[in-house]
């Protein structure tokens, strides 16, 4: 993948439009405060990588934005719609304009891969069965799965294939925003690099905005336009990866200047 092409896109403040706007978000489970007054913007057409140590609430943030977790306080706007308190109709429309790929795929185990990808189409569009199958097959082909895997069940796929199938399902309604939870965790380096390329490629071709929770430094260097670091219950710092090494915070320093980061940087 031609990494520089991705990073050279113009990003002046006047041009960017926030598709996700999180304000003063507070999440609390029992006594434990996960987020406190967290603010985050995701701009249209960017790949945002969210990083942070274990237990800093990366996945909780993702789940909160897509409405799986009700926060204690704060507001979340997606494409200009208040997802927490907005009218039901608007929220349903918004739900069709994002796709979520969960960490282990979360494919429906009783359906084949093709049926999994067709499920959102069946639910939200009025198109015919044969067109659904054709579009499902197209998405499966786009994510680089062989056509043979259409008729397989999720349990017959390898971990990496399941992640791809989950991405195909997330893309089935041609969403504007794609949420990915640890997309490369558990993949071998070659598989992970291929997945990174795939996301970059699809993001470019389909004009997606990608919100990605990840631990993978290679992914961060290869495809992320911007990085948000979660620490101390908020977004500690956000910006392009080059800026991360200049941040004066022990965790950020260790994360972005450690031996693994240096190796990833050389590759990227």
């Amino acid at each position, binding site marked *: 993948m031609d990494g520089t092409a991705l990073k050279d896109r113009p990003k002046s403040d006047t041009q960017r439009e926030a598709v996700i706007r999180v304000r003063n978000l507070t999440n609390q489970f029992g006594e434990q405060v996960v987020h406190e007054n967290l603010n985050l913007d995701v701009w249209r057409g960017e790949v945002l990588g969210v990083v942070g140590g274990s237990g800093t609430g990366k996945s909780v943030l993702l789940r909160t934005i897509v409405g799986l977790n009700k926060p204690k306080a704060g507001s979340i706007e997606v494409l200009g719609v208040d997802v927490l308190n907005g009218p039901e109709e608007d929220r349903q429309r918004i739900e069709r*304009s994002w796709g979520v790929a969960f960490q282990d795929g979360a494919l429906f*185990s*009783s359906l084949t891969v093709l049926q999994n990808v067709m499920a959102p189409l069946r639910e939200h569009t009025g198109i015919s069965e044969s067109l659904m199958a*054709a579009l499902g097959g*197209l998405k499966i*082909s786009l994510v680089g799965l062989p*056509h043979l895997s259409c008729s397989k069940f999720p349990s017959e796929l390898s971990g990496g294939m399941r992640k791809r199938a989950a991405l195909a399902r997330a893309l089935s309604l041609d969403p*504007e925003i794609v949420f990915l939870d640890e997309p490369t965790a558990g993949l071998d380096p070659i598989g992970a690099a291929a997945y990174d390329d795939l996301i970059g490629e699809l993001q*470019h071709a389909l004009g997606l905005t990608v919100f990605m929770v990840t631990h993978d430094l290679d992914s961060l260097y290869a495809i992320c336009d911007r990085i948000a670091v979660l620490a101390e219950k908020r977004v500690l710092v956000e910006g392009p990866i080059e800026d991360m090494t200049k941040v004066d915070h022990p965790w950020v320093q260790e994360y972005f200047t450690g031996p693994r980061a240096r190796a990833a940087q050389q590759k990227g």
Partner: protein
Amino acid sequence: MIRLKILACLNNSIAVTRRLTSHTAMTRPTITSESDATGVCIRIAGDLRTQSLDHVEEDFAALRPNGQDVVVDMAQVQSLDTGGAWLVANLVQRLGSSGAQVRLEGLDPAHSSLIETVSHNISEMTGDELPPRGFVNWVARIGEKTFGAWQDTLSIVGFLGLTLHRLVRTLIMPWRLRRAALVSQMEQVGFKALPIVSLMGFLIGVVLAFQGATQLKQFGAEIFVVELISISILRELGILLTAIIVAGRSGSAFTASIGSMKVQEEIDAMRTLGLDPIEVLVIPRVLALLIMLPILGFVADMAGLIGGALMSWIDLGVSPGMFLTRLKENTGVAQLAVGMIKAPFFALVIGVIACWQAMQVKGSSESVGQRTTASVVQSIFMVIAIDALFSIFFSELGV
């Protein structure tokens, strides 16, 4: 790499299209076609997006090649996603298959590349592989199922042998027994089942007395209700119904819990740690059933007799004292023994089938559900079948 470069030039223009359309209402897509002497002109307009394709899908399919050259005018298309691009690419492919020239006009460069990407991916796809049909396949499927059933029978008998071997080894070397697991299983299987089993027994006694009374009154032979109740409950119903309840209650629990462990690879983990899953998981469960099922059966018998005696007293005026006397005189302990002797067999069947089904779980959590259902159905069926065998056996013996 070529594909990547095609893709790379797309982004900005699509993003522009998106920006224009995402906040305004979508325009319904339309397609019109007119033909003249020179060829056919197809006009597409509006938002050609997956969510609005149902309006034009049939119109697209209705367009068929007629040998003339085609111009597709897409200048009025406001936005396009992969679904719309697929329809256009498919149209071009179909119309072009007759050898006619198909040209796309007025295309936004972004849309053009998207259509190119999509058609690249369609060409890789062939028709769907449908499962083969026909008489030969029907016969083949029957053969497969029969063979599978035979294999399952062999496997379950093997599993029974394995379980018995481990059971005997545990009896010889009792220190290998997992006592904590055994006690906890006994609580789950036996103690917690006491209320439902005794209630069931009580109600069966009541029903038998009630039904028997109405029939026996016609002959003035009310007093025989005691034999009716005691023999049918002690010999058959008490233990049979208890076994059925336990199969539904504990058999399903065994399959579900061991089955989910199988899905989570816990069983494999045990094997790598040098633990024998049969010894750790199966033996405590089967042993708990072997110990508790006779006890539960006995409780059900007693509850049944109490229910029967109570109903006989209320409905027929047979006093509890009279009931007890006739019970002692005309129904020997042999009747109880005939019933109780079946309990360990039922217990073994329920335990072995439930654990074997659990070991057959593969891959998904859905498989756990299927195996649990199969486990309950099979063990109830086997319990009834064994009961029938015992019936024949005892009547031949004249017991």
